């Protein structure tokens, strides 16, 4: 198939669109997933992918998830590493369910913990729950940056202690 044919197909097939990621052109199925866009453009999961938006609004973070994304022809995306991303996405996992959260590097672990407890709620006795990353409990008072949280990390929302006894 020639380049001309490929472009033509991109314009006439509603299930495929042309998108631009870091100023390179790609053809993508539509809809697609965030994770598939990372793979398509070979973006490392430590980086954050953004959908560019017009006006003064901040660009929309796209997480490395299986969530469906509807694309428009010739949409532009760009990636940034954790140091330069003002916003990024992480996932929180509770009882087998993952939910995405858009966060800022300078917000605290406690702020994300509160958001997660609300999203998975109602969870009575929330003081028993903490966020974990790479096997370690994250200190509530640290910022996400201080705690080493990076784009597309999966954090565990779980009780600090599980025990029983008479």
């Amino acid at each position, binding site marked *: 198939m020639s380049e001309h044919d490929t472009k033509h197909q991109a314009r006439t097939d509603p299930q495929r669109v042309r998108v631009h990621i870091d100023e390179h052109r790609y053809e993508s199925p539509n809809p697609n997933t965030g994770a598939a866009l990372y793979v398509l453009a070979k973006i490392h999961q430590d980086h954050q992918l953004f959908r560019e938006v017009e006006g003064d609004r901040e660009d929309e973070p796209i997480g490395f998830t299986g969530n469906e994304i509807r694309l428009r022809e010739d949409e532009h995306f760009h990636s940034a590493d954790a140091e330069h991303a003002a916003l990024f996405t992480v996932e929180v*996992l509770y009882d*087998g369910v993952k939910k995405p959260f858009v966060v800022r590097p300078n917000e605290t672990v406690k702020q994300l913990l509160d958001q997660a407890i609300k999203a998975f709620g*109602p969870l*009575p006795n*929330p003081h028993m729950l903490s966020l974990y990353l790479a096997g370690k409990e994250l200190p509530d008072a640290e910022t996400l940056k201080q705690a080493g949280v990076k784009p597309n990390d999966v954090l565990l929302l779980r*009780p600090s202690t*599980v025990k*029983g*006894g*008479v």
Partner: protein
Amino acid sequence: MSTLYRLPSEVLEETFKHLRECGRGHEECQVLWVSPWDKPEVITRVVHPKHAAHGGGFVLDDQWLNDFWMELGDTNSGIRVQVHTHPAEAFHSKTDDDYPIIHKPGFLSLVIPNFGLGPVGFDDAYLTEIQPDGRWRKVTIPSRLVVA
């Protein structure tokens, strides 16, 4: 919002096998009943957590809990019931109330008496459920569990 869970008899038998072999008649033990999120009402497997135990209690291993949390995400499964033994009478202690593995309303905790050495089944067992206000309330076993 309460669920009536279907429990295969093999899962119940495997549960007692773990409780007896691990507890050996002198230590408490815990297992977890798990089902997939796309069919939560049918318990599909029993999980025996890594834990430290003594005659009057147990505590789950922290690293095991992290690994199991990831496995639940990978298999799209959730924990529906925690099951543990007591040395004698089955009831829910203050420690049992305060440190469950799941904190959601509707989550169930089943306590089996006599270190699980009695007949396989729910004789003298105690079932309790987390309420919307976070408190536990005793519920009848047939209202929440049916052995299929």
